[in-house]
């Protein structure tokens, strides 16, 4: 009998604010321990939270992108528990009235589309972190992260394979970055995915789930879920039972291991935080946020196919990130939209390829949209050929200047002067009398040989069309 896999994801997206959710401390990554923790973050007596309003608009934006209900009156609650890196003894979160309610996200796996339910998204503060080993025999606490604004996005258990789970996570990852509400950096923990995995026989109630936490790449999330599914099926088929617990993924051995068992459900004693007022969101606010939203990836892809005539694949690559799409659109604009296909090809092969080779992001690319457009304009006006353009692009990437500067300094301008090309043709024909004889004797393939020799003699700069034309005329004389 077959097994059915049931997966739900909880994603913690760190919101791109300058300061913490309830204090003015910076949330910049990588500071010395406890240098970004003010008395509010440390939970000192008498300190009070003040909501960073920036988190509201960012959350609502996600809600709108997910076609979700927006919590018109969302409430902050206290989740009470003791832990050394939780300074106040409670985490301020949202329980009964989250800022984002039910919504959906469409994913595509192997060409099949599926709509995944989003249960809710709520705002909360991050905890600090415990550092073991920095002080011999003791545990250190770093509260820099405490109070960092998080949006926890909870999916319905609608995902039925590791592939679907990763497709959903990737889609959400792309979405939050497009919206500019999260930088998506998984290594720094800005985008964290926890997976709840269970299996059951079709038609039966939900099985006991295990939670997979702290996995910081999509590849490992997929492998961890796959391992976990196998583990649970083997366990059940051999008569065992799945224990509800948190498991960690060990990427070196490609297995999941038990971290802690939830023997009993924690009682967090949630209640509304009396230090914070409910957040009321008006229709006007929603309209204003809606108007300020960037074009979403799905809409952009559809537009590239319909308006620019690009293939689904090309549209997908060019909308892979908001930065890439904006770069591309800027190049199209700066080239006057004359040859969008040319722009797309150069973005995908030249620009994307170079980024991948050097491991750079669009923002760090040494070639700007202006420079790219400058080069493409020189191809369009026949100043350089496509082949020479590759040389120009590499030089721009190496920081040697703009396309025009490089063409000028390296003398790469295409030779279009008929007299100059005629001289080159004459010279090559004069130097290869036996080949000319052979051509005239019927070996027409010799034409390609002559063209190659002429182009070589011109340093690749002769206009190939003109070379062909003049060569043919001379040979038929």
């Amino acid at each position, binding site marked *: 009998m077959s097994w059915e896999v049931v997966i739900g994801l909880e994603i913690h997206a760190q919101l791109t604010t300058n300061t913490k959710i309830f204090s003015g401390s910076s949330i910049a990554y990588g500071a010395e321990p406890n240098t970004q923790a003010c008395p509010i973050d*440390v*939970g000192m*007596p*008498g300190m*009070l939270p*003040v*909501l960073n309003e920036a988190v509201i608009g960012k959350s609502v934006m996600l809600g709108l992108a997910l076609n979700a209900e927006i919590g018109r009156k969302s409430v902050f609650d206290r989740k009470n528990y*003791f832990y050394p890196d939780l*300074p106040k003894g409670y985490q301020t979160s949202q329980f009964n009235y989250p800022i984002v309610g039910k919504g959906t996200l469409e994913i595509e796996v192997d060409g099949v589309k599926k709509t995944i339910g989003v249960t809710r998204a709520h705002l909360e503060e991050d905890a600090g972190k415990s550092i073991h080993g920095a002080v011999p025999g003791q545990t250190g606490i770093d509260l820099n992260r405490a109070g960092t604004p998080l949006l926890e996005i909870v999916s319905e258990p609608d995902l039925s394979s590791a592939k679907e789970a990763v497709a959903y996570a990737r889609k959400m990852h792309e979405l939050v970055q497009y919206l500019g509400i999260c930088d998506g950096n998984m290594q720094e923990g800005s985008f964290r995915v926890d997976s709840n995995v269970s299996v059951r026989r079709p038609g039966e109630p939900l099985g006991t789930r295990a939670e997979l936490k702290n996995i910081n790449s999509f590849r490992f999330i997929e492998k961890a879920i796959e391992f976990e599914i196998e583990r649970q099926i083997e366990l059940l088929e051999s008569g065992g039972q799945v224990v509800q617990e948190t498991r960690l993924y060990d990427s070196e051995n490609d297995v999941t291991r038990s971290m802690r068992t939830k023997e009993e459900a924690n009682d967090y004693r949630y209640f509304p935080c009396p*230090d914070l007022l409910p957040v009321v969101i008006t229709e006007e606010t929603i309209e204003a946020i809606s108007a300020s939203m960037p074009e979403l990836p799905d809409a952009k892809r559809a537009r590239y196919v319909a308006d620019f005539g690009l293939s689904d694949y090309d549209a997908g690559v060019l909308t892979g990130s908001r930065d890439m799409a904006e770069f591309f659109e800027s190049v199209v604009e700066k080239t006057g939209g004359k040859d969008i296909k040319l722009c797309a090809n150069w973005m995908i092969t030249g620009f994307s390829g170079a980024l991948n080779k050097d491991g750079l992001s669009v923002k760090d690319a040494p070639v700007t949209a202006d420079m790219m457009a400058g080069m493409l304009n020189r191809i369009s006006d026949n100043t350089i050929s496509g082949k020479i353009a590759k040389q120009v692009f590499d030089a721009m990437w190496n920081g040697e200047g703009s396309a025009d500067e490089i063409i000028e300094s390296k003398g790469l301008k295409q030779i279009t002067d008929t007299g100059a090309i005629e001289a080159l043709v004459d010279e090559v024909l004069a130097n290869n009398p036996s080949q000319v004889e052979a051509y005239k004797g019927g070996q027409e393939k010799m034409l390609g040989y002559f063209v190659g020799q002429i182009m070589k003699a011109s340093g690749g700069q002769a206009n190939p069309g003109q070379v062909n034309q003049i060569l043919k005329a001379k040979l038929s004389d």
Partner: protein
Amino acid sequence: MHNLTIKQMSEKLHAGEITSVQLTQHYLDRISKYDAELNAYVTVTPELAIAMAEEADKMLASGEAGLLTGIPVAHKDIFCTDGVKTSCSSKMLDNFIAPYDAHVVTQLKKAGMPILGKTNMDEFAMGSSSESSYYGPTKNPWDHKAVPGGSSGGAAAVIAAGLAPMATGTDTGGSIRQPASFCGITGIKPTYGSVSRFGIVAYASSFDQAGPMTRSAEDSAWMLNAMAGFDERDSTSLQREAVDYAADLGQSLKGLKVGVPAEYFGEGLDADVEAVVRNAIAEVEKLGAEVVEVHLPNKDLAVPSYYVLAPAEASSNLSRFDGVRFGYRCENPKDLQDLYKRSRSEGFGAEVKRRIMVGAYALSAGYYDAYYLKAQKLRRMVRDDFTKAFESCDVIMGPVAPTPAFNIGEKTDDPTSMYLADLYTIPVNLAGLPGISVPAGFVNDRPVGLHIVGPYFSETKLLNIAHQYQQVTDWHTRMPAQYQ
């Protein structure tokens, strides 16, 4: 000098007849003389007080002084004070020195008020007698066998004994008004949100409200002017235009409708206290007010509601005292659990532990609806009672507490009877309304206050009524013989 009103002190300071240093030193001398017996201060700060008085004298000399410049103040030990111990009268914070000032402390520093020290209180403001203090009980200056009330008992005692001209207090369930009544001084709890809670160690956040404790209503009005106002660091602080709380002092009481709730004069009220309160109301009537009967039918729901909600908030607010970052930490903890358990059981006193347990219970799964949510519902019913009552009157008058000050030790073994000491004040906190206690007489040589409660933002009215009453009575000017 300690018999002067604040207005007289201020005039003398501005006229250069006395200096702030002289005035401050006078109070410091009295503290040295009397406080060993009274135990009203947890910490006295003579160096700080004199340094601030010198600054105040400079302000006075340069003409930058305000009405309160140079007049010393005592802060309840719940207000965080930069560089000075803020203990909340708990072993848990016996070693705690905040690196910041509470908003109220900042405001009074700006006004140029030298800080004499920090006053004793019930531990974490949980109590009605100041007996739960880690530093021992404060005595009532009128009778050393009696409690001064609580939780702001130290503050009330220093005003009554002339060990400070002005003091700050906080009122969560009656903690300004009940000790004011017990010690024969004037104390007002403003509308919730009028005074910033920033830097006040939280007990029950949705109730806690700071206010002035002084001899007269006029003094309170002046001090409230310095304490109140919007503070962006407290999200529950009200964003209103600045109010001059002294603006209405001097208004006639003609036509004032005084509501007297029958429920405030029922079973449990000491007959002599009732007589004092009724006499005071009659006095107000003589000033032109009209008495009407009103009803607060859900009065008896207030205490049970409060003793679910306040402990629930407290159980969470006090979680930060875990021995990890500040405050008391037990010796040689074996592991994390041991650190938590022993730091908290050794650092907190019995009443605090009782309320944390009650509160945690009321919030726990399976009990939340029956206790916490039910109590919230009762809270709304109590508030609605007031809204309805204020449709037919301007203010409500009644007793502050059912008895005069009780004896030290009398109620310490019976928490329930202690809780009932606040049955008239708690409804006001549940509703978030302003209320004032005004000295109105004595029962067995112990003071008794008149309680005046008004609608939201009616402080100027309450202060004027109290002021008019104090123009025709002298209860507020009396001092215990040994402290004169």
